[in-house]
């Protein structure tokens, strides 16, 4: 079943088209990421799902029901806010029980459910504290518990890991993913971090200028970016200019080529090669990222750390499998 459906949805703020004719269908139980730079319309899409914004035009359905004109408090959809939005005057337990309280669940019952939700996010016994006494990571978990205690059919997460440090973020990514699997709730996740989107999501919608540039599985989006924007934004693919691509024997047009698909030296059947001068090399741990200038284009390649790093100014030959080069639509 389709959890969230957008049909030609637009949201304009004056002359600004924050969301511009967006079509999407999120399946039930899916972990769906909306990825894009700030101002790309991804958060506005999330707010349209939550009901904080109403579409200027278009049609939204949540589990088959028309969502336009339905206020947020009548939607069985919950949000984990970017800066958590915990109520500062309530205890952690009261925060988590809030959704049940406003729905009229008896006190003993709602406090028990809140305790269980806190245990689920690994914060048992924290109920009596105030939000101000918790660290960022703990507040994040409370925000998650506060949303999940309502058993929403769709959980919206607005850059929920943005304020956490790297280690905590990686840990929370894994926890979120396993939580989503065990609960079977549809997660809609907004992020500007492509690594996060790629590692967590079942499908990704890449946003730019209020439009979806590409919608697909992480692998599709990563390996076969449809537009230059997607190739640039998702991962660190090389975007090759039309002349360079034509020079290698492909049809003229922009193409993307992932650095790890390029190897040092020419060899083997089905491979294409090019020669260039090394302009930069940086050590990344498992590999060295070597950038060469070849036929007017800058191309980066991953050279395994076990191989010798070419010096700056040296001329080297790189090769890649012709299938790994992905030609993109138009000149977007």
């Amino acid at each position, binding site marked *: 079943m389709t959890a969230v459906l957008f049909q030609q949805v637009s949201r304009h703020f004056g002359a600004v088209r924050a969301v511009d004719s967006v079509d999407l269908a999120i399946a039930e139980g899916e972990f769906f990421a909306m990825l894009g730079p700030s101002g790309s319309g991804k958060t506005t899409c999330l707010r349209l799902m939550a009901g904080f914004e109403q579409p200027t035009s278009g049609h939204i359905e949540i589990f088959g029901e028309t969502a336009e004109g339905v206020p947020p408090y009548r939607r069985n959809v*919950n949000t984990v806010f970017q*800066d958590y939005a915990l109520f500062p005057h309530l205890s952690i337990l009261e925060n988590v029980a809030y959704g049940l309280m*406003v729905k009229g669940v008896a006190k003993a019952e709602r406090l028990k459910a809140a305790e269980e939700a806190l245990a689920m996010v690994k914060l048992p016994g924290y109920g009596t504290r105030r939000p101000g006494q918790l660290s960022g990571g703990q507040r994040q978990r409370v925000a998650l518990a506060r949303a999940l205690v*309502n058993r929403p059919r769709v959980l919206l997460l607005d850059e929920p890991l943005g304020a956490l440090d790297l280690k905590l973020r990686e840990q929370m990514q894994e926890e979120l993913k396993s939580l989503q699997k065990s609960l079977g709730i549809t997660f809609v996740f907004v992020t500007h971090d492509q690594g996060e989107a790629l590692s967590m999501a079942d499908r990704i919608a890449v946003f730019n200028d209020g439009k979806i540039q590409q919608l697909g599985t992480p692998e599709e989006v990563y390996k076969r970016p449809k537009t230059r924007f997607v190739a640039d934004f998702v991962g660190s693919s090389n975007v090759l200019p039309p002349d360079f691509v034509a020079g290698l024997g492909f049809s003229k047009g922009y193409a993307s080529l992932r650095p790890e698909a390029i190897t040092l030296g020419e060899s083997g059947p089905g491979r294409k090669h090019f020669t260039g001068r090394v302009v930069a090399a940086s050590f990344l741990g498992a590999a060295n990222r070597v950038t060469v200038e070849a036929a007017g284009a800058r191309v980066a390649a991953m050279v395994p750390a076990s191989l010798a790093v070419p010096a700056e100014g040296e001329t080297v030959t790189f090769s890649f499998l012709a299938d790994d080069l992905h030609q993109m639509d138009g000149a977007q």
Partner: protein
Amino acid sequence: MTIAADTSILARRENTSGRLSDFFWRNPKILLLLMLTPPLLWLGVIYLGSLFALLLQSFFSIDDFSGLINYEFTLATYRQLLIPSNFDIILRTVVMAVLVTLASAVIAFPIAYYAARYARGKWKVIFYLGVMLPLWSSYLVKVYAWKLILAKEGIVTWALAKLNLLWVLDAWLSLPVVGGTSLSISYTGTFIVFIYVWMPFMILPIQAALERVPGNLIEASADLGGHPAQTFRYVLFPLALPGIIAGSIFTFSLTLGDYIIPQIIGSSRLFIGQAVYAQQGTAGNIPLAAAFTVVPIVIMGLYLWMAKRQGAFDAL
């Protein structure tokens, strides 16, 4: 090379003001002490001192025959407060202050909410001007203006007559206690003018409190299923409460102590402020005046204590 020699890394300041600022930089506490001593002396000695003297006066009594003050400790003056004519004054003032405070809060909240949540740019400036402008003109002028507005020959009566609604006013004025011969000589008039004059003191603290409530808390409440009324009850109101309390301290204490508005607008019955004025002036009964003055102080103390116990300041 002289330039290089002059610009050493640790530049020296040789003049007096430079040395003085260096000294204060090294001893910030001395600067703080110098800045705070004059106002603290003013507050501590002159203000608190006179308040304490007042408190002391209230424990003396006046000799009924000679009219001289008897400097012996006694609670007789406080007992005098409880005789019906004096106790009526206290009761009248407190009831008026409570009603004025409640009405001010109810009227001020939507205005403050609009200013904090919706007004931007030009409209914010207009809001501040609108709220502050009445404070720039003399209080007496405003009160006399209201006397004319509320008088039998005033614009309120005129407008109601034109609208054929004079019977509403007449019906209201014929009610006991709140009524009178005209609005300007009734408790209703006193009530209206009190609200008007103290309104900025209620709006501004509430607006400041609401401004500090992040908008996403309102959204979070709605997101969790809170209807607008529930969001107000459980999120907005508790978080605005410190501002409402701050505003109510103003309206409540100002109404308790005011002696001009009830004198110009209203029935001739006394309020605490007028009683203090009369006792220390014409009657020359300083101890009773002092005892009357202690009443608002005690009431405010009780009010704040209760507000704190109710958790009004938890969100601070």
